[in-house]
């Protein structure tokens, strides 16, 4: 018997090695991230769900006020990891449709083929590959780059994402320094051809300034690179600057607060892409946070003030306030109320737009956190406005209020 044992000893070892190799593969499995929102809604007077936004506002409060299906599918994988050097490949496809029909193709003729898909991320991130910069990551490709958003109105106030390249998280002793070059394309105002616009992004983040508080400083320079033909035709090539100072406070009433101050000139007026045509300046303040009001109530809040002062009087002052308190009944059920107010005051003396939106939603989600998803919510939304409004769906443009209801799912993972 022991003879037999000796004889077979090599075979199981090879087998074991093979099995071990196979078993060890799932450990380095593909990272699957993503996002989706989708559902069904209607307007109380009949017809498809309407969504409400003050005309000229940079965003709308989103609870019970989203009329489309939007999804992101992200697959990433660490392909190499030796001595702290890693290579990571990331990808993301986004998909959006009107949420009107079963078949909503991304191309083709027909009334419901309104789907659109977009290649949003395909990049490689290489960490610790530059010996002089330990901890830093070299990256290139299409990427969501350090985007800053407000969740409850889906407002991206600092977002230079696009095709790009850079080095991020360089330790400086004061904070982490990141450098990036990204691209977006605007349209020439005379030739109506593509204008390649570039943004140079420099940020110093993670500067510890107080207990649980950190500062991030950002400088973006945007420029438009005209071709000879575009230059001859006289297309605008406004460059511009965007300065951002942001303070994040942790342990803030059981949550956190983020305050951002931004100043931008000319082409960089907006959220981080150079538009080549703007001329003027912009000041913006965004203060947002999530707080724990009691064991069973969490609330997100935001206040936004933005003043765009344009040379051609196309600017506006936008003021926005919103709160979303969530009361948790138990581990899986909660009630959310979202109250949002937007006021847009056009620079050209046009009519003011004021819109108030109130939503009541009964929510079922996995877990009790404000951020717990996936979530299914049954909502009723009432919006009332004065002045011009941006509407989708079946509320008549002539109305000055609207009531909608529906059921929506939201998930991220």
């Amino acid at each position: 018997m022991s003879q037999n044992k000796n004889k077979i000893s090599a075979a199981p070892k090879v087998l074991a090695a093979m099995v071990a190799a196979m078993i060890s593969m799932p450990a380095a499995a593909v990272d699957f991230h993503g996002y989706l929102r989708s559902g069904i809604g209607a307007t109380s007077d009949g017809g498809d769900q309407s969504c409400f936004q003050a005309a000229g506002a940079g965003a709308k409060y989103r609870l019970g006020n989203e009329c489309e299906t939007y999804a992101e599918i992200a697959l990433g994988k660490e392909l190499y990891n030796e001595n702290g050097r890693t290579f990571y490949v990331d990808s993301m496809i986004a998909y959006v449709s009107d949420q009107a029909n079963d078949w909503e193709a991304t191309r083709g003729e027909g009334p419901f083929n309104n789907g659109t898909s977009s290649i949003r991320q395909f990049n490689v991130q290489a960490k610790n590959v530059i010996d002089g910069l330990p901890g830093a990551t070299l990256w290139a490709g299409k990427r969501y780059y350090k985007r800053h958003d407000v969740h409850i109105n889906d407002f991206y106030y600092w977002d230079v994402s696009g095709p790009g390249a850079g080095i991020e998280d360089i330790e400086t002793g004061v904070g982490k320094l990141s450098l990036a070059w990204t691209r977006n394309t605007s349209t020439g105002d005379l030739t109506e051809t593509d204008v390649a616009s570039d943004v140079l992004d420099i940020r110093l983040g993670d500067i510890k300034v107080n207990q649980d508080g950190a500062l991030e400083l950002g400088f973006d320079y945007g420029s438009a690179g005209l071709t000879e033909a575009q230059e001859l035709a006289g297309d605008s090539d406004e460059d511009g600057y965007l300065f951002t100072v942001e303070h994040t406070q942790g342990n803030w009433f059981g949550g956190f607060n983020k305050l951002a101050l931004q100043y931008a000139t000319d082409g960089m007026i907006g959220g981080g892409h150079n538009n080549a045509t703007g001329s003027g300046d912009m000041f913006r303040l965004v203060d947002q946070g999530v707080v724990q009001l009691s064991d069973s109530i969490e609330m997100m809040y935001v206040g936004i003030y933005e003043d765009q002062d344009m040379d051609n009087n196309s600017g506006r002052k936008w003021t926005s306030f919103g709160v979303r308190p969530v009361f948790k009944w138990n581990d899986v059920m909660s009630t959310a109320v979202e109250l949002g107010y937007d006021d847009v005051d056009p620079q050209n003396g046009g009519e003011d737009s004021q819109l108030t939106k109130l939503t009541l939603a009964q929510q079922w989600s996995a877990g009790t956190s404000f951020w717990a998803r996936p979530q299914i919510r049954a909502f009723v939304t009432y919006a009332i406005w004065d002045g011009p409004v941006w509407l989708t769906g079946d509320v008549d443009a002539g109305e000055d209020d609207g009531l909608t209801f529906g059921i929506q799912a939201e998930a991220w993972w």
Partner: protein
Amino acid sequence: MNKLINIATLSLAAALTTGCIGGMSTTTGAAGKAPLAATVPADRASCCDSLAALPYQPLSADFNGEILLDEHSPVYAFEDGRSFFAAFQLPDAGSNTRIELRSLVEKGALFQPSVLLLDSRFRPVRAFDSAAFPYQPAQMLTPDSLYGEISLRQSYAGHPDNERYLIIYSSREQQQGETQLLHPAKAYAKAKGNEPPNVPDPIARHSAGGRLQLKVVAGRTQSLGETLLKPLIGDAPAPAVAAPVANTPAALSEEPTEPALPETEAYYRAAIDRALQANDLDRALRLAEEARRVGATQVRDYLLQKLQVK
């Protein structure tokens, strides 16, 4: 006098066994009801004299349920600390059987598990500490948790070297630690590809009790292995080793097939430390010998070193 105490201990052990069974359920309905025990009460005696005497519950080959460790659970003085524990007799399902263990964060607290695997003679053959159960951020329907998978070494049904007993406990050091969780707002940012808010992550303190999920994933029974290996090993061994283990010590292979895990070595070292502290040299020697048999080859040197220092 001694006898009396032993009897008392035994009856206590019996009572605790019942408690342990009561603490295990296959439903999830009771989630969040029982408070976690922060520490093992000082007046709680060890249930048993040795690992062999623990109240093992048989675990079916398709078990998938919750284990609640709380003040009703039995206590044992493990080599690395007193702890509430759950002890199971594993199904002898053959090769490829996998154990999946998840310990859930509840109300900011967490039971950080250690796992001890014993062979059919109650010898600890493999030990797993915190490194085997890393943190997993909450995702979809699973809350924040520690999670690990263990592939059992069960060469073929009935072999006495097979891993047959599993003990879940938490060492003294583990009970005093804490685990850093991922802030849910950061998880959102990560999923959306946004810059995570620069805020401190929540901390879960470790607790002497907790809620765990245990799942047995039976491999494709040994028939596959047999099919593959039969031509090589022949038909002989199965009946010989299927006999009761205690009566056939010769059937146990004395030479380990592969080296033990560092955690197993550490477990034996801690045991030797304790034996030496108690001036029980005989026990220390036996531990070193047992360690050698399960492949923990460095333990003997460790004992020799300790003795030289003295």
